[in-house]
């Protein structure tokens, strides 16, 4: 349970000399569901992008599964769902086809899809509650269902670590509940989750640890803080732009 999956030590990221992450240290161990919280511009997405090797550190180090990031090659162990809108992109694909594409990184070039691939795709569709929509074109699904399709695609690759950037932003309540259930199963089967969120909503009971990022540093690491003020209202629309100077008190009460 205690094996480190992600280790960030004194990580610094700067764009054009402007620091976005300053001296961030974080260890996520196997079985955790860690939520990185913070306002827009706080550096929370940059932290995730650094862990994935999408932005370079200017100082410090990152380790994935006991390998320095620079030497890490086993990317099929990591499932990633970036922040985005829609799964279709105008492409006429079915839900099943999109989810099945999550097997490609594991399958390699030569081997055709086999029983294990179909079983993984079926399990992923069930996990997000879309088994009955498998044959439908993705374009006919709601935004929340499309997001669930993308999460199923990541689950189909049978990753050990799932990294999600704003998985529930703009997603309907039913989809958020389905997603929370899928995460619970994933972790019960030994998975580890690092997700970035603006707000937790129905995910809240699944989160084992909250890491609050503010102005490029970690200002809270531990129990999930209570939402404060108007953000606590269930009908509040959280998908709005926040200024870069939003206080950390939003999360730390």
């Amino acid at each position: 349970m205690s094996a480190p999956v992600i280790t960030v030590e004194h990580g610094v990221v700067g764009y054009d000399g402007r620091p976005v992450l300053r001296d961030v240290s974080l260890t996520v161990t196997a079985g955790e569901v860690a939520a990185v919280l913070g306002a827009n511009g706080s550096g929370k997405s940059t932290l995730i992008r650094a862990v994935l090797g999408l932005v370079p550190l200017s100082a410090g180090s990152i380790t994935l599964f006991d390998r320095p990031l620079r030497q890490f090659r086993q990317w099929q162990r990591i499932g990633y769902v970036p922040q985005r809108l829609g799964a279709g992109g105008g492409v006429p694909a079915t839900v099943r086809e999109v989810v099945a594409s999550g097997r490609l990184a594991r399958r390699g070039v030569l081997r055709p899809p086999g029983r294990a691939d179909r079983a993984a795709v079926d399990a992923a569709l069930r996990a997000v509650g879309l088994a009955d929509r498998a044959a439908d074109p993705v374009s006919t699904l709601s935004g929340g269902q499309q997001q669930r399709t993308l999460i199923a695609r990541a689950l189909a690759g049978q990753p050990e670590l799932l990294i999600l950037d704003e998985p529930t932003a703009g997603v309907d309540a039913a989809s958020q509940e389905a997603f929370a259930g899928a995460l619970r199963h994933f972790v019960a089967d030994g998975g580890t989750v690092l997700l970035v969120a603006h707000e937790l909503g129905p995910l809240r009971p699944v989160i084992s640890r909250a890491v609050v990022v503010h102005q490029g540093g970690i200002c809270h690491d531990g129990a999930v803080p209570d939402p404060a003020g108007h953000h606590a209202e269930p009908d509040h629309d959280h998908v709005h732009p926040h200024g870069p100077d939003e206080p950390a008190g939003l999360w730390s009460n």
Partner: protein
Amino acid sequence: MTSATGYEGFDGASELLRALSAPIRLAIVSELAGGERCVHELVEKLGAAQPLVSQHLRVLRGAGVVRGSRRGREIAYSLVDEHVAHIVADAVSHAGEG
């Protein structure tokens, strides 16, 4: 461009090297040196999930290293300039990993 530093001319090269600073992006450039590839081909070759490969391609596209063009249902990527492939090949050879 009036500046006292005198090394503004290196900005573009610095940006390029930053885009090339991850092993998986060097692997993408090396693969594209062999010709145009669709995203799913890169995913199979690299063994990394498609969203991750797409994000790395975005980094390379942002630095002007690769460009994408629609090929049926997918986007096919190619090198904007073969010269980058030589830079990468030289770097790989220099680092003794070739």
